[in-house]
């Protein structure tokens, strides 16, 4: 029962880190100590953090590999931007419109995740990796050839070009193929991003430490044993994967409402992006939510911070990568981290004594 309380405290530390980082950054910005280039990175950074945390549900908690996480971000980004652009004159209260947009991104990405997961997660083996990889590429390409327009008769769709929509003169093109969606209301900002990070953490951390989370991790650790105690494998795999996808959708909403022009390029929604998110998760420690946040921050900001040292930049970047790998993965570093947290929580003695006596008895 001690453990129960401590885990909750552990979660509080994670929330605390995010909030303190936010306050510090806001202060620095108000003092003008942060370059505009860095300021511009803050919203994408929040999106990356949400992506990394959400991917960690699939990779770390469920133990499956997803190589198309950016695809779910893409779904969230486009569906919500579409909604916001259509309703910008109808729902004039910005926070209400944006809240609905977030819910839309969450639901659409979640439903797509569910539909992809349903056939694939029943199979044993790394099929999820293959299918998500394909999905990520397909969704990006679909967005590049999709045209949607609106006039007094309603919506028009085409996969050919804007002319094929056959719009009336008063009509407007909303999704313009490879040019994507332009003129999405810019509702995202750093504060909204941090709030969304906190909500994501709240959902993820609470879910991990619950009956559902336990079932998912039981499946990860041993499918046969999980079945033997009556845990519904497909249901919990789907639950974890859908939530992971849905939260990636939220990251997409944040991302798209920060851009005046949203296009699906290989850089933002393609394979490279999916791999970058996976790198955040792996370097931060698989299954370690706080680690995902920290590695997303370091790896996003570092290239900018090092911009002045053009020659040494890639060298330092590589060294940091290696150092992070060692810090998240070596058993000694894990011990060290656990102890640091334990000391922070004032329960170090209690725990080490327990562990020690147990090893001694056998």
């Amino acid at each position: 029962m001690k453990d129960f309380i401590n885990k909750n405290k552990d979660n509080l530390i994670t929330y605390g880190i995010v909030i303190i980082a936010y306050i510090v950054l806001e202060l620095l910005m108000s003092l003008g100590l942060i370059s505009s280039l860095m300021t511009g990175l803050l919203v994408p950074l929040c999106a990356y953090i949400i992506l990394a945390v959400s991917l960690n549900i699939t990779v770390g908690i469920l133990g499956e590999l997803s190589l198309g996480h950016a695809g779910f971000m893409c779904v969230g980004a486009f569906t919500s931007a579409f909604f916001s652009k259509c309703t910008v004159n109808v729902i004039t209260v910005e926070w209400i419109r944006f809240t609905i947009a977030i819910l839309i991104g969450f639901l659409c990405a979640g439903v797509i995740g569910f539909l992809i997961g349903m056939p694939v997660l029943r199979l044993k083996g790394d099929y999820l990796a293959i299918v998500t990889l394909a999905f990520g590429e397909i969704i990006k390409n679909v967005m590049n050839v999709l045209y949607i327009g609106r006039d007094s008769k309603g919506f028009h769709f085409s996969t050919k070009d804007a002319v094929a929509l056959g719009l009336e003169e008063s009509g407007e093109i909303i999704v313009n193929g490879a040019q994507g969606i332009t003129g999405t209301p810019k509702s995202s900002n750093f504060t909204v991003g941090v709030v969304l990070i906190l909500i994501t953490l709240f959902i993820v951390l609470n879910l991990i430490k619950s009956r559902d989370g336990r079932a998912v991790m039981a499946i990860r650790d041993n499918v046969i044993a999980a079945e033997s105690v009556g845990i519904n494998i497909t249901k919990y795999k789907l639950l974890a994967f859908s939530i992971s996808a849905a939260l990636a959708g939220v990251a997409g909403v944040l991302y798209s409402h920060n851009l005046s022009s949203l296009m699906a390029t290989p850089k933002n929604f393609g394979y490279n992006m999916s791999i970058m998110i996976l790198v955040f998760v792996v370097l931060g420690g698989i299954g370690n939510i706080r680690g995902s946040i920290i590695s997303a921050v370091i790896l996003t900001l570092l290239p900018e911070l090092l911009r002045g040292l053009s020659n040494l930049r890639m060298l330092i970047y590589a060294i940091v990568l290696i150092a992070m790998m060692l810090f998240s993965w070596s058993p000694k570093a894990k011990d060290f981290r656990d102890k640091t947290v334990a000391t922070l929580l004032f329960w170090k003695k209690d725990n080490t004594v327990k562990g020690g006596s147990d090893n001694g008895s056998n």
Partner: protein
Amino acid sequence: MAATNPVLEVTNLSISFGGLRAVDDFSVTINEGELYGLIGPNGAGKTTAFNLLTGVYKPNEGIIRLCGEDITGRSTIDINKAGIARTFQNIRLFKDLSVLDNVKAGLHNIYTYSTMSSILRLPKYYKVEKEMTAKAMELLKVFDLDSSASLKASQLPYGKQRKLEIARALATNPKLLLLDEPAAGMNPNETKELMDTISFIRKEFKMTILLIEHDMKLVSGICERLTVLNFGRILAEGSTSEVLNNPDVITAYLGE
């Protein structure tokens, strides 16, 4: 023994893997509260019989009844819900979960609350989790594991991992408990202690138990009735003393 209710009735159970009849025409009836032994040399088909009973494999022939209900062909999950729990010959714990969480995972279908309750941390979450923890600690105490509750399952010494598996199986509140060589790899002291624990849970939980054991001396101490398997077929069955004096059984074991 007076008119007792059969908990498990198996008739003519068979399965083949390719040409090999791993379990061939296996029948057994186990009564409520009984501790029944299933013995036989390595490769005799004991574990395969467990896999059939728990729905890991579907039998080619035969019927399995649990408390009168036909459960043949059901999924592992449904069979567990119907009331059969098991342990594994090669330990299968949730190795990165705590000892406590391993047992709580076993309580998965006994104590429930919605996903919403857990995400929003509604009062129901705290209430049910508290009950689960209390129940799990109670089970851990039976196996003297309560002091290790917050360790990772993989950090436990081997003997305790075996016990934890039994605790997890019991958590699902089964009518029938299947133990697959629970003493494998234990030293004589640990084995003795484990057999005492098994006798204890049988009395304490009024549990019906089917126990696979490789070593027949060990079984003779605690089981009243036995079935001996050899090459997938029943070689002998009946009361322990009868079976152990059966010349066929002696030959099968000496021949090993």
